[in-house]
């Protein structure tokens, strides 16, 4: 298999798991317009995940399909970072999770779009427009919640305290990622960092929220060491395929 395979699979898992979490909001959003926005972001990420899975399946060359990869792998085989599998919590938790992801995702796609792998570049180019909208949306909500009411600020602070520790994994390369970075196939995360950091600083300032001290980063998801949340998510996601394997739906 191509050396890109595990990385593309990691991208696919990441987008799928976050899309799944966001889809849990469907019908339960705080206001109809935001219900739509959450579904929209979920659909974008689901579409992106499918493109990656399809590409990963081709790279692997063993005849597996996008659905085989999504529905027939166990939690320890999943490669998404811990951040995206964290539960929705309240709207503030969903927003903080989304902001941390979007801020990284946008810069990553910018890098991938100009990368040497044509297929990845084309997926990234398509997704970049969507990711820009996602980042705008989650940034605006960070600002609204931070500079809104006392209640919203309290909830935002709590969400930051809970989720900030999962941001570090996004830009901490695994052995696989380091290798691909050396080959020039994956953007150097160190180079992405200033833009990510600058946007975070800007949004938090607008939100009147002091930058939280850098927590000890929680690592593990990208190497298959997940939190306990993923197993439940997959039990639900995969139930029908596990129950009736090999059928067409």
């Amino acid at each position, binding site marked *: 298999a191509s050396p890109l395979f595990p990385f593309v699979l990691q991208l696919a898992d990441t987008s799928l798991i976050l899309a799944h979490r966001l889809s849990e909001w469907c019908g339960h959003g705080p*206001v109809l317009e935001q219900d739509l926005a959450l579904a929209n972001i979920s659909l974008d990420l689901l*579409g992106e995940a499918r493109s990656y899975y399809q590409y990963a399946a081709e790279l692997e060359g063993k005849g597996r399909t996008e659905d085989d990869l999504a529905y027939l792998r166990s939690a320890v085989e999943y490669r998404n970072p811990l951040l995206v599998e964290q539960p929705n919590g309240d709207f503030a938790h969903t927003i903080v999770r989304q902001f941390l992801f979007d801020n990284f995702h946008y810069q990553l796609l910018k890098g991938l779009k100009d990368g040497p792998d044509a297929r990845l570049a084309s997926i990234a180019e398509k997704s970049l427009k969507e990711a820009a909208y996602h980042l705008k949306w989650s940034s605006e909500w960070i600002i609204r919640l931070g500079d809104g009411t006392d209640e919203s600020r309290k909830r935002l602070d709590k969400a930051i305290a809970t989720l900030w520790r999962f941001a570090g994994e996004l830009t901490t390369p695994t052995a696989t990622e380091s290798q691909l970075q050396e080959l020039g196939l994956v953007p150097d995360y160190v180079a992405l960092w200033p833009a990510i950091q600058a946007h975070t600083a800007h949004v938090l300032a607008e939100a009147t929220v002091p930058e939280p001290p850098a927590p000890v980063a929680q690592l593990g998801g990208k190497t298959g060491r997940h939190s306990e949340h993923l197993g439940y998510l997959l039990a639900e996601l995969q139930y029908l395929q596990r129950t009736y394997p090999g059928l067409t739906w």
Partner: protein
Amino acid sequence: METLAQDLSPEEQFQARIDADIRIEPKDWMPEAYRKTLIRQISQHAHSELVGMLPEGNWITRAPSLKRKSILLAKVQDEAGHGLYLYSAAETLGTSRDQMLADLHSGKAKYSSIFNYPTLSWADMGCVGWLVDGAAILNQVPLCRTSYGPYARAMVRVCKEESFHQRQGFEIMQTLCEGAPVQKEMAQEALNRWWWPTLMMFGPKDSESPNTAQSMNWRIKRFTNDELRQKFVDMMVPQAEFLGLTVPDPAVKWNEARQAYDFGEVNWEEFWNVVKGNGLCNHERLQARVQAHEEGAWVREAALAHAAKRKAREAVAV
């Protein structure tokens, strides 16, 4: 027409426009009963879209393929969109979304009873699309020509998307029926549960539907409940046959004389029971909506507070 109109009372002018199939627009004079009936009907329709997100939303996280997950999520999102158009249409009649939601949450306003039935298997996603959306379309297509302009225009958009959804639902059923035996059984089991409730979607029998005449006169209703129910059966029985499924009504039989299908009597006791709030999911559906609304209050307040702060700052800056 225009010259004559000068001599007519407002009521007569209004009815004359309706009879001439000229749309009533928000700024036009209208009888209070027409306004109230429309508010009730449109908001009930909007609430149905909102509550209707729940039974299908129930399977988004368990859809059996990425493609199906994506289609289903997009479909439920469309329903949210329909809700938005319809609330806006109702607002042109002088009510507010907050008021309409308050009426939904208090139980004063109704929504379609069909959503008080649970979705228990993946085949239900097929049945909801095929049967429930199918019934909805029969109810709604005539409303694209309804007398109130904003409502009619909203319905044009809604119907276009609904017929797309209905095809998707049918396609889910078809895939199941052409699949493994266990999938076909799943499809039949779901049809058994959904058939009668969808027949109920057209409302009580004409003989027990006293408002029909007035609504038809105002052209906010264009066919009677029983007419639509018959249309539905005539449309669906052959489709079920095509799928190789059996409609759970032994009385269904082609009537050569009527050129229509005979069918059995709906269980009206069940119908009224669910309407009165005693369906299996009435409690849960309403709870889910109330909970989302209540848990979202702080978010809406934050957004308003922030907008006000920003406006105040901008005013100072200017």
